[in-house]
């Protein structure tokens, strides 16, 4: 009997038990008793206790069983004959697939011989697993059925299960964070075995060109990440912000303080569209329309070596993308300043702009700064615009018409360009990812703290 079949049988049987519990409780109520919990709760209670532990057991059992089966198969003479290399798991997997009928013929010839053993072992162990699951389900059903009755607080029992579900759902976020840190950390540690972390973090020379492959030219690749981070900051935190901060801030001020309600209700969603446009579209726009324009402009200004992959083009487009982000953060911060401040200032005879400049803006400043930090963290993590429009040359330059490269561009290049897989170069992508993660983490945490603290101040 397969575990799948066992699962279905358990679900059906426990379902029957639950509906039986339901009708029994209904009968009690018809008899005039005032129930503590509604019949449906009793049914759910029985179902949960009957089915869930058994299913959890099966879930845990499945990988265990796979392990047992594999050991059993390896203990056979044919199994022992297999070499213990990367080859073995593939053969085993295939033999198993053959045994379960997932595939009809094998790629590895050894797999065919092993299939019957697999079939036997799987049969044996699934019987054991199914039996235990039945016992667990039976016990669960039996004991929960016994509690069903007028005064039994089935609802509380069911709610505890739901609570468990809620807790598990909320832990997904923790696991994701953990997953990110771990998956980046392992590769980063391997990278730091090859490259000195000090050189990586503080080196001024990013030029992995020399270390693509062992047999290729040169072996002393330079992995100084400062130029990448400079490029990231130059594009995301400087150029983009020069565009986004004034436009976003003044837009927010206009929309909150001056625009009539109707106009505001139109303009706000329109601005939000800017944030909704996919970044690949911005990237295309930057590469095809903005970058040539910027270059032409630079040439017209007499700058001869203007790059068509200028920091300016990518930065400006990124800034446009960030405008609504800045404006909605500023909007929130301004809205959080109590209307009483506005009234207080107007009542003294200040004009609206004086009120904004001298009272509202200073009061909202911490929130606005927090919002800008969040915007910066978004900008430095942005990928597609820079992949499509920024350059690959790791220049340490402050000339906006020059080409710079960013961390995200390098991650994409390192992981999808031509390279050898286990080289320091590939691993460097993960190290860059980890550093980027920590930078945005610190920025975000700090910014969120600022924003929240600031909001609480007025609540």
């Amino acid at each position: 009997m397969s575990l799948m079949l066992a699962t279905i049988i358990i679900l059906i049987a426990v379902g029957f038990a639950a509906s039986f519990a339901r009708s029994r409780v209904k009968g009690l109520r018809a008899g005039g008793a005032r129930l503590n919990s509604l019949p449906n709760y009793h049914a759910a209670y029985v179902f949960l206790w009957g089915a869930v532990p058994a299913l959890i057991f099966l879930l845990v059992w499945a990988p265990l069983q796979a392990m047992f089966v594999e050991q059993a198969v390896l203990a056979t003479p044919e199994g022992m004959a297999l070499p213990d290399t990367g080859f073995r798991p593939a053969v085993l997997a295939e033999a198993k697939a053959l045994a379960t009928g997932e595939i009809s013929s094998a790629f590895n010839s050894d797999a065919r011989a092993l299939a019957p053993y697999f079939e036997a072992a799987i049969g044996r162990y699934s019987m054991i697993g199914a039996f235990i699951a039945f016992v667990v389900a039976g016990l669960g059903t039996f004991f929960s059925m016994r509690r069903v009755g007028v005064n039994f607080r089935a609802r509380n029992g069911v709610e505890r299960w739901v609570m468990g579900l809620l807790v598990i759902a909320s832990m997904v976020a923790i696991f994701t964070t953990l997953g990110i840190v771990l998956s980046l950390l392992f590769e980063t540690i391997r990278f730091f075995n090859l490259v000195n972390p000090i050189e990586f973090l503080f080196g001024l020379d990013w030029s992995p060109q020399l270390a693509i492959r062992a047999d290729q030219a040169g072996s002393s690749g330079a992995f100084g990440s400062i130029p990448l981070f400079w490029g990231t900051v130059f594009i995301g935190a400087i150029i983009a912000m020069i565009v986004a901060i004034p436009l976003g801030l003044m837009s927010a001020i206009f929309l909150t303080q001056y625009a009539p309600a109707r106009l505001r209700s139109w303009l706000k969603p329109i601005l939000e569209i800017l944030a909704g446009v996919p970044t690949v579209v911005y990237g295309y726009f930057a590469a095809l329309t903005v970058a040539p324009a910027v270059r032409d402009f630079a040439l017209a200004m007499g700058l001869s070596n203007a790059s068509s992959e200028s920091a300016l083009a990518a930065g400006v487009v990124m800034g446009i993308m960030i405008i609504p982000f800045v404006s909605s953060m500023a909007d929130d911060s301004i809205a959080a300043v109590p209307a009483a401040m506005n009234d207080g200032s107007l009542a003294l005879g200040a004009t609206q702009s004086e009120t904004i400049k001298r009272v509202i803006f200073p009061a909202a400043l911490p929130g606005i700064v927090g919002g800008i930090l969040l915007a910066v963290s978004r900008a430095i993590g942005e990928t597609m615009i820079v992949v499509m429009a920024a350059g690959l040359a790791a220049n340490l330059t402050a000339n906006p018409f020059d080409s710079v490269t960013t961390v995200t561009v390098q991650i994409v290049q390192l992981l999808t360009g031509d390279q050898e897989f286990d080289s320091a170069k590939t691993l460097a992508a993960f190290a860059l990812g980890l550093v980027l993660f920590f930078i945005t983490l610190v920025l975000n945490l700090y910014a969120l703290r600022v924003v929240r603290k600031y909001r609480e101040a007025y609540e």
Partner: protein
Amino acid sequence: STDSVSQLSVVGSSTVYPFTTAVAEQFENANEGVRVKVESTGTGSGMKLFCEGLGIDEHDAVNASRKMKISEFEDCQSNGVTDIVELTIGIDGLTLIQAQGEEQLNLTSQQVYEALAANPYGGEQTAQNWSDISPDLPNAPIRVLGPPPTSGTRDSFVELIMEVGCNANPAMAELEESNEDEYKTVCTKIREDEAFTEAGENDNLLVQKVSAEPGRIGILGYSFVEENLDKIQPVGLDGVVPTAETIGNLEYPAARLLYVYIKGQHVENKPALGQFVAAYKQAWQPGGMLGTRGLVALPEAQRAEADAAADGMTTLTAASFE
């Protein structure tokens, strides 16, 4: 399931990618129900993915802009991928380009090396204009747009032009014997000032940039040159102007062979794979579909060998790497 048997998966070089996709597309059109996925992962990680093992979920073929290395072959062997068929699909010429309408340049590998090396022959790089290198060359600033270090084209450029130019100096050839590391640095490191700019992997953009900027030289694969002859023209190298012909007979010095590797053991279970190889063979014949995409067909003798490998599914042995 029967469905996955007719799904083929190809990974590997971005240089070979356009050729394989073209074959795949035609192949799918001709065979209802067959699906071919081509992913551009780069040759290195393509090899790694390819050698992971046998099985329905494993990749069936890998595109390569260079020959498989013995280390990769051994990796494959240890994972049970023992029957590997090497298909040499054609030649790609690494080309220097300039804008259409300018006077056609003619450079030698040595001149290119001297202009672009970080430390030509171990000395300091001082050349700013082409005329600094040789008085015959125009008195114009050196401005080259080249592939980034992450691309296979860069490898080829270093291997096919830079090292050749470097070796023209006998002292350098000696250096290779005595101090290999030093040699590599001197011969393959490219300057990083404004004379050499790394372009993106988007070769189409590179074409546009070069065509828009007289005096600029670009480096890319020959297939792109044919597409865009209205905008750009090839630069002659060592006296040979790259054309389909000069590349085909390997007269052009910077030509390279492109490969596709196939898992022989998969052919048995996936009949589609065998048909795919046949379709590929069809496509690389002179006048075949790949020709129209800019791939130069192999010379007669080599092509016969490749045809034989495709027909007979000749597998590689360790001996083939000697």
